[in-house]
């Protein structure tokens, strides 16, 4: 199965510090993949290299077979690579509707229109309203994003990423900082994502990981420690050693039934 997102020997140094260590990685279409590792393992750096926020010191990144290593972030986004950020990156003074209308317009190549006001393209508006409806944001679609509660903002962060119907979605800790009462909504949204979309979930929360991931990559000190299915990873002694004392031991010894492990 051809990989929709791939890296070969991807490497990133910051001065004397190696943040990403020779990572070779392949993501098939429709994947449900998680990237885990202890704090400081370089997960977010890796995602930044994938999405184009950072340029690698060496190595290559391929999107759908095309070498995108030198491509800037916006070009990769246009080619179908979307992401959410660990800390929400939203337009505080926009409304959710404006945000999604913009994302969809850009994806459809309509964002350079300059004469008619925003909102006159019925197709774009209804697609945006539908998406917001699906993500339970319809009732706040005209509110100022900066004034929304954190959980709603986090949902919008996901909405804006999927608005362009990307081939690959990188989710950086989607439930981070979200109050307990609102986590289910986020998890439901992630579960309902289209099957053809390849997902990479960066997570600390093993609940989420075992619920959604069919495959895992464990990153330690910027390099890949091991890859495999959740069952394999859980029983890998090296992984246990790395995580000893870092996490709920339960999360490892009793994987969730009915989740992606099936």
């Amino acid at each position, binding site marked *: 199965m051809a990989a929709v997102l791939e890296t070969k020997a991807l490497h990133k140094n910051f001065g004397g510090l190696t943040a990403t260590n020779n990572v070779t990685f392949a993501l098939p279409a429709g994947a449900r993949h998680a990237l885990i590792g202890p704090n400081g393992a370089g997960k977010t750096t890796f995602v930044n290299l994938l*999405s*184009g*926020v950072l340029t690698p010191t060496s190595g290559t990144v391929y999107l759908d077979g095309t070498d995108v290593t030198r491509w*800037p*972030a*916006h*070009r990769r*986004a*246009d080619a179908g690579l*979307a*992401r959410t*950020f660990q800390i929400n*990156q*939203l*337009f*505080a*003074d*926009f409304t959710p*509707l*404006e945000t999604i*209308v*913009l*994302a969809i*317009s*850009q*994806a459809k190549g*309509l*964002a*350079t*229109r*300059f*004469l*008619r*006001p*925003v*909102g*006159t*393209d*019925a197709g774009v*508006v*209804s697609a*945006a*309203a539908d998406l917001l409806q699906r993500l339970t944001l319809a009732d706040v*679609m*005209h509110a100022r994003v900066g004034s929304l509660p954190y959980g709603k903002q986090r949902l919008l962060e996901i909405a*804006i*990423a999927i*608005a*362009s119907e990307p081939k690959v979605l990188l989710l950086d800790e989607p439930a981070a900082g979200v109050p307990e009462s609102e986590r289910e909504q986020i998890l439901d949204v992630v579960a309902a994502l289209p099957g053809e979309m390849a997902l990479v979930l960066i997570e600390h929360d093993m609940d989420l990981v075992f619920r959604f991931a069919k495959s895992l990559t464990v990153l330690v000190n910027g390099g890949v420690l091991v890859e495999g299915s959740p069952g394999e990873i859980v029983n890998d002694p090296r992984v246990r050693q790395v995580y000893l004392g870092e996490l709920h031991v339960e999360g490892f010894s009793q994987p969730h039934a009915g989740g992606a492990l099936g």
Partner: protein
Amino acid sequence: MTSLAAGARVATADPGAHLVAKARWRWPEFLLWLFAIALIWLAPSRYLLFNEIAILALLALSIDLVLGFSGIVTLGQGAFYGLGAYTAGLMAKHGIGTFPWSDPLLGLLGAGLVAGFVGFLSSFLVLRGSDLTRLMVTLGVALIVQELGNKLDWITGGADGLQGVMPAPLLGLFDFDIFGRTAYLYSLSVLFVLFLLARALVNSPSGLSLRAIKGNVIRARAIGIPVERRLVVIYTIGAAYAGIAGALLAQTTQFVSLDVLSFEKSADALLIVVFGGVGTLYGALVGSIAFKAMYDVLASATPEYWSFWLGLALVLLVLFARGGIIGLLTALRDRLDRARSARA
């Protein structure tokens, strides 16, 4: 200006209509433009002043496009203003009587093209670096252009200025009379047309993507917006607008002096936008009126110390009234709206 409740009703009904409604013309806008036209009959002795204000407003508008909607802090707009002024001035001076060189509208076109072109070339400078770097680069370019203007006095007339600028009658019909009536109508019309275009741009999907760049450039890139390309375009448009403002000055005053290139001009226009309200378009218009009025009043009272009051106003503005005049008016309107719906 629908109340919150009415807004909610529209929202559930038709989200598209709600968005479009934001771009609708509101009564204060009509009022402002009608008033501007009415001045022709209300104050016929002050055409020259109104002409100045209209030109200043256009320059301030060019800065608002660049600063208010794209977040580029620039001190260099004066360079484009000056380039436009000299282009139109030279066209009118050396093309006396020969169509098309001395036709005022073509002069505007020429000025816009020249200023826009130089803006395009220099736009790459403002894409890189921090706020301070951009500030310094735009300032540096403006100062270089100023020096060039000084040195190339065989073109620009140097310190004596460019004299003998004689534009042909507007549309072949209207002479530029000494009272400035044609001048004012001309400048006002050009301002109005360019304002309409700017207003349409700002409310369009293009404008939305510019505001996104200003609001959160990381997210803008992450959804595919080619940030650099968009900034180059808006910077070029801003330069063209400033150039056209300069051309209006040259044509309506029949003279171009070196201080069109001065840093002080750029700074004044920036202050006008800030006082009026950045990112509102109308801030540029309202700000120029207020600025000229303030200047007239304060400068005649204490001429040397005009800058003290300006400085104080600036400090107070930053601390307490960051939205400028439009910001204060908007806050007032919101408070009245709330009071009204509370009573209802």
